[in-house]
């Protein structure tokens, strides 16, 4: 046998490691970027980072292909051909900024609302909203409205926080983890880490999802529910738990508004003269404020006055959920799950929550001043995301899920679901929406927020919508994240008014981020009778040559995520853990090799050129030289800035003076900052005195803010009352009945609008998309490595449909909705709800985009379901077309879609087939043999 060859097993790995934050999706993991000769050689997870603790997903590791992607924009571009042609000329930054100012300055002086500024998958919303507020337009939001605002808003209104960035399961103690509608993102690495951790302990997972992939594939029990019926399943379980008395009565009485009395006449919560909610004290039998020391709120209390008997919220809930309509046998057919199985799941939830309850030897004191020697743990936890929220009944479904976990007493207890700072945070202390426009001056406050009744709606004096997206109007009163998906169609229709300039960042609105993609393209390119574009000017910023580029008049090229500063701020969407507050930065670990600038830095300059008060010094000079300068020096309120760590002399956390060396300290610390919650404060946070004091110290609140979970959401009742004719602000007649029905202050289930308006026999199948783990919306396809994993997206059909149509994998189907048709390749999937078809989200690409060859499978075989989904529902008998959105929050109802499937002859390419757009960046190389350094 010949000798083994010599092998150097200790080669140099890199010249230097720079630690920053990933942006290959929205998870914000810490990464170690290995450099050789100043170039990125390898990216791996940062072991010290609170989010990912060293692990990294496929997207994160492929970041090297993203920062070197041929699709990167190279320089500012000015459109020279017709919109959509892709004809641009490169211009200098001075020209680009002058052009932008020439559009934006006159608008601001005369009518700031004529600017619509929407920022997509922006991770700097506290900054971009600050810019928009200073500009003075009411028309600002990011992408939450087409993403998961139902989840966020339902959680915040109900319990002061929701899933994902608001909270996480107690991975150390949970024994049963139940997920609803969780595709393979939101969030990415932490859920995988958690699943791995609990599986290693033998804990069980129940996955509720029509599609058995990803997390649902490893779940011990798969519940292949019919889309849009999750609320019914959840309330059937609530029914069973109530019927069996398997609910946490102590928890409900102490920490929720279940014992609060409802005024029998108005349905509003009874309050004392200080506005405090009233309960009956079991000790005295008397009416008392809920928060008094020693009060033992009575769940069955009632109060008689003026001939009326006022009963508790809990009483109403018992009446509603014990009703036969929520019995498992009554719902089984609709949800597609047998009654016996529904009972089995409810029983398992009850068994683990109550029979496996445990105690931690941890003293704590609640907000009433009562001292507890132990913390009771209930090891059941839930997680849920877009699958249940992107429906027109999504808000109420998300609320129902929170009711379920609160009835089990598993929120903020050991083993249950736990909030991450700055949550828990009651809805009342969030801002309310602001919309008062003054020419030449800032808006009167933050754009987005939480309404608490008709008075908070964003309406003009004549009652018309103040915002271009009609957020915070009677059509969707609690639209906390705005409705980005309605901006272009409303601006095009001039309803509620016309705009002059559409300014967008990181949102692929002419492709996968819009419903009715072809319609949106037409709106962006249509001209009026004078030959002018209906939407006169469009400014767009992105790092990459997406499908949206061709539809803008001015392109401001952004940097990639390794070439920029960012802050993952506690003012925005931080990286906290249930045991710690944490935030992070990005910093230029490499310098751009193109004529591009970080978008936020461009806004600093634009803000100064427009004389926006927050962006100029007293002498009129530019206040922040760039985004890094803003991150360090911006003061949101005294002692509070974008970053919480290393303030003052570098030792202050949360509150403290500006520290000029703050970014250096972050870099030294690995790109992030963590402050742990003290022992004894890390559970029961909404009611835990030590936590509340810590939160004040950290600057999360200015005073302790304990609160009750709002099983009954009173603001919804206020909208209902308006619809019943009470109050000055009244909804339009055509919306009265819908508001009365859908703004119910207690969760209920109703069929999705599509299900009620479309003939189920004609369109028998539900159609869904989900995002794969290895791709983030449209970004992944430009990545040479990731597109080899997900380069095609067949429409997956259940076995029954395959057989009925004699389909074979690779055959083509015509898929038709009430709105349109597509022709696409199909493949069989057995582990799928039998009335559901689905595909991967945003794999389909337009020819010419993303520096791909025209023959790229993403363009020839890939497709979007977006073509089948309209932003409006089909016409009703009344001649009106309502938004295809949740009636409470305006969340885009992507997953309400119903279709029919027919076999068709093999086309040459998937349909519809759009003309190639001219690429401003050319095409990528045919072969890669990537290696940097020596």
């Amino acid at each position, binding site marked *: 046998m010949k000798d083994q060859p010599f092998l150097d097993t200790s080669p140099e790995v890199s010249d230097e490691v720079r630690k920053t934050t990933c942006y290959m999706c929205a998870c914000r993991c810490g990464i170690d970027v290995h450099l050789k000769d100043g170039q990125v050689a390898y990216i791996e997870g940062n072991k010290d980072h609170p989010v990912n603790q060293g692990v990294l997903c496929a997207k994160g590791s492929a970041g090297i292909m993203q920062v070197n992607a041929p699709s990167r924009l190279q320089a500012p571009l000015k459109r020279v051909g017709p919109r959509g042609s892709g004809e641009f000329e490169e211009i200098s930054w001075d020209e680009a900024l002058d052009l932008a100012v020439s559009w934006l300055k006159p608008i601001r002086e005369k009518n700031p609302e004529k600017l619509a500024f929407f920022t997509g998958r922006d991770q700097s919303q506290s900054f971009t909203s600050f810019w928009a507020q200073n500009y003075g337009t009411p028309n600002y939001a990011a992408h939450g409205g087409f993403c998961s605002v139902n989840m966020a808003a339902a959680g915040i209104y109900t319990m002061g926080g929701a899933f994902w960035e608001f909270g996480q399961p107690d991975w150390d103690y949970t024994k049963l983890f139940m997920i609803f509608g969780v595709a393979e993102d939101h969030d990415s690495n932490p859920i995988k880490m958690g699943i*791995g951790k609990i599986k290693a302990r033998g804990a069980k997972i129940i996955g509720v999802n029509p599609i058995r992939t990803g997390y649902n594939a490893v779940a011990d029990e798969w519940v292949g529910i019919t889309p849009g019926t999750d609320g019914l399943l959840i309330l059937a379980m609530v029914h069973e738990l109530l019927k069996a008395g*398997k609910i946490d009565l102590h928890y409900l009485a102490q920490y929720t508004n279940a014992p609060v009395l409802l005024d029998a006449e108005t349905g509003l919560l009874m309050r004392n003269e200080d506005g405090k909610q009233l309960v009956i004290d079991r000790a005295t039998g008397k009416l008392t404020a809920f928060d008094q020391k020693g009060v033992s709120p009575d769940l069955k209390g009632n109060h008689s006055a003026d001939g009326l008997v006022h009963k508790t919220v809990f009483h109403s809930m018992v009446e509603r959920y014990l009703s036969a309509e929520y019995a498992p046998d009554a719902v089984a057919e609709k949800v597609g799950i047998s009654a016996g199985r529904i009972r089995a799941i409810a029983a398992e939830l009850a068994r683990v929550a109550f029979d496996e309850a445990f105690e931690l030897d941890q003293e704590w004191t609640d907000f009433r001043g009562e001292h507890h020697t132990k913390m009771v743990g209930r090891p059941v936890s839930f997680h849920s995301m877009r699958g249940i929220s992107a429906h027109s009944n999504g808000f109420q479904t998300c609320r129902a899920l929170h009711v379920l976990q609160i009835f089990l007493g598993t929120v903020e207890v050991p083993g249950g679901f736990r909030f991450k700072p700055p949550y828990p945070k009651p809805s009342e202390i969030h801002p309310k929406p602001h919309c008062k426009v003054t020419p030449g001056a800032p808006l009167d406050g933050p754009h987005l927020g939480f309404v608490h009744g008709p008075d908070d709606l964003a309406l003009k004096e004549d009652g018309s919508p103040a915002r271009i997206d009609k957020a915070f109007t009677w059509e969707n009163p609690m639209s906390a994240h705005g409705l980005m998906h309605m901006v272009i169609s409303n601006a095009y229709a001039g309803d509620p008014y016309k705009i002059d300039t559409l300014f967008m960042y990181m949102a692929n609105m002419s492709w996968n981020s819009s419903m009715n993609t072809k319609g949106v393209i037409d709106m962006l390119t249509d001209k009026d009778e004078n030959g002018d574009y209906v939407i006169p000017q469009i400014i767009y910023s992105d790092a990459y040559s997406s499908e949206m580029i061709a539809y803008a008049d001015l392109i401001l090229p952004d940097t990639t995520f390794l070439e920029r500063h960012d802050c993952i701020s506690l003012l925005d969407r931080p990286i906290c853990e249930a045991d710690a507050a944490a935030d992070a930065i990005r910093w230029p670990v490499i310098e751009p090799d193109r004529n591009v600038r970080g978008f936020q830095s461009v806004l600093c300059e634009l803000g100064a050129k427009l004389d926006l008060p927050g962006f100029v010094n007293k002498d009129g000079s530019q206040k922040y030289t760039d985004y890094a300068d803003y991150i360090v020096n911006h003061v949101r309120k005294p002692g509070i800035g974008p970053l919480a760590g290393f303030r003052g002399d570098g030792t202050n956390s949360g509150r403290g003076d500006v520290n000029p060396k703050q970014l250096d300290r972050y870099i030294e610390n690995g790109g992030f900052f963590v402050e742990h919650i003290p022992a004894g404060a890390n559970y029961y946070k909404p009611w835990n005195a030590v936590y509340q004091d810590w939160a004040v110290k950290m600057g999360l609140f200015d005073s302790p803010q304990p609160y009750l979970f709002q099983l009954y959401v009173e603001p919804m009742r206020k909208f209902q009352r308006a619809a019943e004719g009470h109050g000055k602000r009244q909804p339009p007649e055509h919306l009265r009945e819908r508001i009365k029905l859908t703004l119910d202050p207690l969760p209920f289930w109703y069929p999705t609008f599509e299900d009620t308006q479309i003939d189920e026999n004609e369109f028998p199948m539900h159609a869904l998309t989900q995002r794969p783990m290895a791709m983030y919306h449209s970004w992944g396809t430009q990545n040479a490595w990731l597109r080899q994993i997900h380069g095609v997206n067949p429409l997956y059909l259940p076995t029954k449909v395959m057989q009925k149509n004699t389909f074979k994998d690779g055959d083509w189907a015509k898929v038709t909705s009430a709105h349109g048709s597509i022709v696409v390749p199909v493949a069989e999937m057995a582990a*799928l709800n039998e009335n559901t078809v689905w595909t991967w989200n945003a794999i389909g690409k337009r020819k010419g985009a993303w*520096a791909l060859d025209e023959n790229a499978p993403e363009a020839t075989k890939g497709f979007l379901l977006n073509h089948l989904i309209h932003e409006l529902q089909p016409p009703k008998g009344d001649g009106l077309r309502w938004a295809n959105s949740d009636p409470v929050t305006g969340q885009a109802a992507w997953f309400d879609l119903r279709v029919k499937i027919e076999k068709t002859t093999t086309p040459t390419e998937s349909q519809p087939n759009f003309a190639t757009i001219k690429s401003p960046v050319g095409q990528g190389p045919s*072969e890669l043999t990537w290696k940097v350094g020596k």
Partner: protein
Amino acid sequence: MTQLPTSTDRKLGLVIDLDTCVGCHACVISCKGWNTENYGAPLSDQSAYGGNPSGTFLNRVHSYEVQPEEGAAQLIHFPKSCLHCEDAPCVTVCPTGASYKRVEDGIVLVNESDCIGCGLCAWACPYGARELDAAEGVMKKCTLCVDRIYNENLPEEDREPACVRTCPAGARHFGDFADPDSHVSKLTAERGGMDLMPEQGTKPVNKYLPPRPKDKMEEIEILAPLLTPIAVEPKGFMAWLDKTLEKV
């Protein structure tokens, strides 16, 4: 033809937990990144932005649907890379000696300078674990990150294969199967770790932990003890509540 060592001092390899693997492809890309930059020629990609993208990977994840006799279909994610077989047919078939199994730890490697790209080893491997790099013309395969696991330029905690370090679900484990007390040996024993295609006689070192049984929850009827009704009507419920609260 090339000889295998009669025995190796250690048997380094992976345990892959099919019960926990969520199919995220993190291991695939982490491997691609490390091995593009490190051992041997970069892992090239053809038609990288074109109509038929096809590159070299040392590790891929396949997903298979399984239909049990009873119950719902299941989806199994199956990561696959070289299993570093004790009787590795890819080594014995090699005409130049480029493929070899290391005496000290059992890792199967390709010495690229001796590889003529004939492809015999890929043909001999029953697992399809080797890929011929189209740009370099040499055979590529999992090295078990031999340039990481002993690398003194890395912190000790990082001296493990890139795929193991990155796996978010913790479904991949690295260790020495020759040591019965190692983590991987114990996991294999506890969880019934299996050889892939043992009938091939290759004696793979890597082991797969089988998925745990699924969908075993039994449907329950209304009178099952866990959900014994205390009341079916709101009135009865409130009466129960009265009694219960008195006891609290």
